[in-house]
């Protein structure tokens, strides 16, 4: 892909990923964060973390379905934005919500297992963000790097569970997000399944063609 092509592709992604942040800043500046601003900011950042993470997880399946290469070129950018939103979401919890009251935070973590899940999701994303550079891909080797970056799916599952667990009775958006994740995982599973069957058939055909097979009684 040309440099120009990459820019055309990535510019809207930058704009879309920064828009929620800009909107939050604008709401903050014009006193439109509602009666409970800290809760509103925390929830908004959490929502967008999961949405952008889902978008980054959608790129590979999208490439499979479309038979196109361009979606995969957006994967890293989306993944890094998801990580950035996750960090902001976490920081707001520490700074604005609990104002560095570590004892209370510790208590809350023990009593609210969904916080543990959210933290695990963030921890899972961290090595992926660190190894996201091209240099790191080379250093780790393609195979090891790909294996490591499958953790993105684990992060998605953890984040979706975090949302399902914290959402109160009657809310439904947590299920919509989980459904999208299940769909994305489903596309990959079917793809893996189809490839495995093809590989086995190819292997069987190769075995059938060897002399050792022919010499069997």
């Amino acid at each position, binding site marked *: 892909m040309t440099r120009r092509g990459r820019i055309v592709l990535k510019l809207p992604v930058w704009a879309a990923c920064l828009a*929620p942040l800009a909107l939050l800043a604008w709401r903050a500046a014009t006193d439109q964060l*509602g*009666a*409970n601003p800290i809760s509103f900011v925390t*929830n908004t950042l959490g929502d967008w973390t999961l949405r952008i993470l889902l978008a980054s997880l959608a790129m590979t399946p999208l490439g499979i379905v479309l038979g196109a290469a361009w979606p995969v070129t957006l994967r890293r950018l989306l993944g890094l934005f998801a990580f950035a939103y996750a960090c902001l979401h976490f920081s707001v919890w520490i700074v604005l919500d609990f104002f560095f009251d570590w004892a*209370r935070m510790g208590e809350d973590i023990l009593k609210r297992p*969904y916080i543990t899940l959210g933290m695990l999701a963030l921890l899972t994303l961290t090595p992926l963000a660190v190894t996201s550079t091209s240099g790191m891909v080379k250093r780790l080797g393609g195979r090891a790097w790909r294996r490591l970056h499958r953790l993105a799916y684990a992060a998605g599952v953890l984040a979706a569970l975090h949302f399902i667990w914290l959402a109160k*009775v009657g809310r439904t958006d947590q299920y919509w*997000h989980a459904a999208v994740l299940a769909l994305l995982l489903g596309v990959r599973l079917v793809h893996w399944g189809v490839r495995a069957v093809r590989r086995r058939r190819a292997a069987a055909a190769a075995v059938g063609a060897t002399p050792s097979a022919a010499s069997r009684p």
Partner: protein
Amino acid sequence: MLIKRAERFTSNDVTDPALYLSRRELMAGAAAWALLPGASAAALPAPAPLQATRNVGRSLNEPPTKYEHATTYNNFYEFGVDKDDPARLAGSLRPRPWSVRVDGLVQKPKTFDIDELLRLFPLEERVYALRCVEAWSMIIPWIGFPLAALLGRVEPAGSARFVEFTTLLDPEQFPGQRPGFFGSSLDWPYVEGLRLDEALHPLTLVTVGMYGRVLPNQNGAPIRVVVPWKYGFKSAKSIVRIRLVREQPATAWARANPREYGFYSNVNPAVSHPRWSQATERRIGEFRRRTTLPFNGYADQVAALYTGMDLRKHY
């Protein structure tokens, strides 16, 4: 040779309406998914003024939460599960004409018209703390009269042990009562309840107004109860029936999730909600969290109701 095929069917002809309507709902959900939940609520016309004398002895000496916040940040699932749904959608509720049936184990069951109730009992203003189970709180100047006065009129029978409150059931006025894609948020109608001695406690207030005005729709118009030492969901809104019963009522939240919401639901910093701590709360309008007080600060007045009870078990 060119063979033309006539388009005899469209997908509309072969698709069950129920199916494509549910697909539309799915798409609407997907569209909503893309939008940010709005924090802004439309400017609301202020309800009519309502005269009342402040009961200083029963009032906190703290500045009330901003009226704008108390009327735009609400849990009232009959309108929807988001905090701004009640303020946005409350226009569909018609608080007049309205009547409340008070019956069950009473000597003189009676249906009261709302305006009759306003004439029967002298209205007082009481500044109470409101603590939501979601760990936020407000200070609200309510207007109303003690529930004990109303119950006195119907003369509870000796066999009555609990009081059950039922909220209006009408999906036309309450959009949140219409089932969505994943079913209903709660089993309607909303039912809440108190032990008779809790209901007769002088703090338990039948409420018809707030901030010197008639109760706004999103705050439970035209008539609700306020039980300040319990989590907010115990204070039933838009009540159409008050029934005295022998058995403990099956309340809406306890039915939806018995492990998380008990019948008593007294504000108790020592007993956590299974998914969050109740040790602290955020007072709306403040930055730092506050320590939550036992019985929401009303322990000196109500703790005696629970002498000998294990409040960890009866959460």
